């Protein structure tokens, strides 16, 4: 008598079992759809209205974008992003790569050195920014120190120099990220078959030649990963600038993220802020989408 009932219970359990993965994945999926993609869409919508202090539904087309592109403040910020992004990526990868190659020579105290190089990544951008602000402050840091040592004519005042302030941001950001890039490269270098290096030695290649001709070219995926990570980090850079220069002198060292914050939350220009946010999203997408595309395509072929 209990058999059919039992079977029915089993089948409910079975059905639950079958849908368990979907049930577990659904809440985070919905949250992501709403809070990430939903708000992207919302921001996109706001950027097409003339919202100021509060969102309005006063649709006015691409007017905000036209305003945005005409603003010197935005153009400075975007120009800064190009300078900052390219130098930051270039130097972080170069320095990280060189450090990794040097550490790869099986030296003593490698563990300690690796931690030292990697440590900056563990510090928040606010701390990095504040520390470098003091170090580079002409009346507190390097400049005054060198002058006290007797080098009276020494000058290093980039942080208060309108034309050079963005390069100060580059220095601090590179300091923070190179260790991370090094760790990325070092782990990849460790997976290189030692026999390849031996074979190259027998073939008569010098160590430099082995690195530049064989090992580094085979690390192309790591270069790509490092590039993508650093690129999106640079586009969303915000707190480092706030702590280091606060965008100054004037607005000479602002980045788009600082511009967006300024407009959306301090100057009651939500529509304009949203438009700048969409511009940043487009920049990130321009980098990430081809990357994802090539990754997925490679997987499908492999």
């Amino acid at each position: 008598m209990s058999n059919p009932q039992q079977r029915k219970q089993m089948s409910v359990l079975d059905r639950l079992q079958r849908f368990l993965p979907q049930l577990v994945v659904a809440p985070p999926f919905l949250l992501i759809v709403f809070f990430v993609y939903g708000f992207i869409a919302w921001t996109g919508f706001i950027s097409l209205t003339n919202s100021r202090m509060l969102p309005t539904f006063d649709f006015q087309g691409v007017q905000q974008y036209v305003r945005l592109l005409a603003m010197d403040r935005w153009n400075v910020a975007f120009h800064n992003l190009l300078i900052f992004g390219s130098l930051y990526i270039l130097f972080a990868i170069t320095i990280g790569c060189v450090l990794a190659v040097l550490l790869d020579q099986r030296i003593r105290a490698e563990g300690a050195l690796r931690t030292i190089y990697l440590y900056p990544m563990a510090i928040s951008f606010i701390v990095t920014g504040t520390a470098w602000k003091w170090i580079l402050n002409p009346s507190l840091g390097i400049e005054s120190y060198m002058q006290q040592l007797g080098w009276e004519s020494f000058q290093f005042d980039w942080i208060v120099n309108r034309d050079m302030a963005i390069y100060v941001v580059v220095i601090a950001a590179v300091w923070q990220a190179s260790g991370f890039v090094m760790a990325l490269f070092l782990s990849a270098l460790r997976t290189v078959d030692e026999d390849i290096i031996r074979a190259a030695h027998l073939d008569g290649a010098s160590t430099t030649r082995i690195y530049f001709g064989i090992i580094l070219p085979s690390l192309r995926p790591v270069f790509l990963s490092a590039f993508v990570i650093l690129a999106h980090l640079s586009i969303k850079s915000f707190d480092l600038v706030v702590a280091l220069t606060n965008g100054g002198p004037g607005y000479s060292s602002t980045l788009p993220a600082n511009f967006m914050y300024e407009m959306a939350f301090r100057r009651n220009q939500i529509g304009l802020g949203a438009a700048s946010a969409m511009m940043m999203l487009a920049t990130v997408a321009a980098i990430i989408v081809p990357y994802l595309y090539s990754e997925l395509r490679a997987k499908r072929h492999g």
Partner: protein
Amino acid sequence: MATISIEHLSKSFGSTDILKDISLDVKDGEFLVLLGASGCGKSTLLNIIAGLEPIADGEIRLDGEVVNDVHPKNRDIAMVFQSYALYPNMTVERNIAFGLEMRRISKADRKAAVLEVATMLQIEHLLARKPAQLSGGQRQRVAMGRALVRRPKIFLFDEPLSNLDAKLRGEMRTEIKILHQSLKATMVYVTHDQIEAMTLADRIAIMKDGVIQQVGTPQEIYSKPANMYVAGFVGAPPMNFVEVDLIRRDSQIGINLPAILKGKPKDYFLPLETSKQLEARENTRIILGLRPEMITHTAFTQSTSAEIECDVELLEPTGADTLCVIRLAGHPAKARVSPLLACGPGESMAFSIDTTQVCVFDADSKKLISSS
């Protein structure tokens, strides 16, 4: 002309001695195989010959010239690695040509040399590919091509076939042998596979724990193993060992071989060929080494060999032969018989033992006392 001469070579990593006082000579044009289980130091020895590992003690000479401190690239040596060690970012063509490129050989000459080697190895259709697009066997050929193209004095092989499947391994083995016969170059080949060693080698050097146990032709190693380790390592299935007392009965020196017949223990007297070494050890404990083929079916064998009858516990057919597992002196032993003459498991069967071929080892030192 290329000879290798190693004298009193020692090497240690930290406090572990990897190689202990190795002395070895390789003649010009010889195919020497370093055979041993993993961790015996054979690969380290090969790397030392290549110059990839520094030496702690001893001397290594190529063509009579001491090369202890000569850089690998100046030793005129090529090496084929177990992992093939192809340069992943280069095409097959550049992989093969890389050594020539480093030696500043002109582009046209490089191209010609690569093509010649590729044709020889039948990989000319793969030249434009990257290593990742090749199968294991093809990578192996590229690795060989990279070694061949430079026409070095000495070739070193570090277990080059161990990543291939059994069939391909057999084919490549033959090709390497043909290659050696046509190039007449000096080759040193490291392997843990005793069949590879037996089939390829002019001479085999068997190593264990950083010490060379025996150097000899495959036949010498097989029929006159210097000690029980060598005897057990070479030959498949391995040699059977029986620990017994050496005795004399009716003025004939021999042993009592304990076997089992119809479930009951039964001793058989096995006469051995008299020799001075054996006579000196009368009434001492020895270990008798019997290869499976020395214990075989009684039909068609000479009447001089000793005969025993015992229970067969298990049969292992291998196709050409069937292996009968019998029990000698309390331990399982294998006999190689014709599949047509093998009886069923559990039955008893008569075997003839060819006592003229047996090896006798000292029970303490495990060294060979005598063999015929």
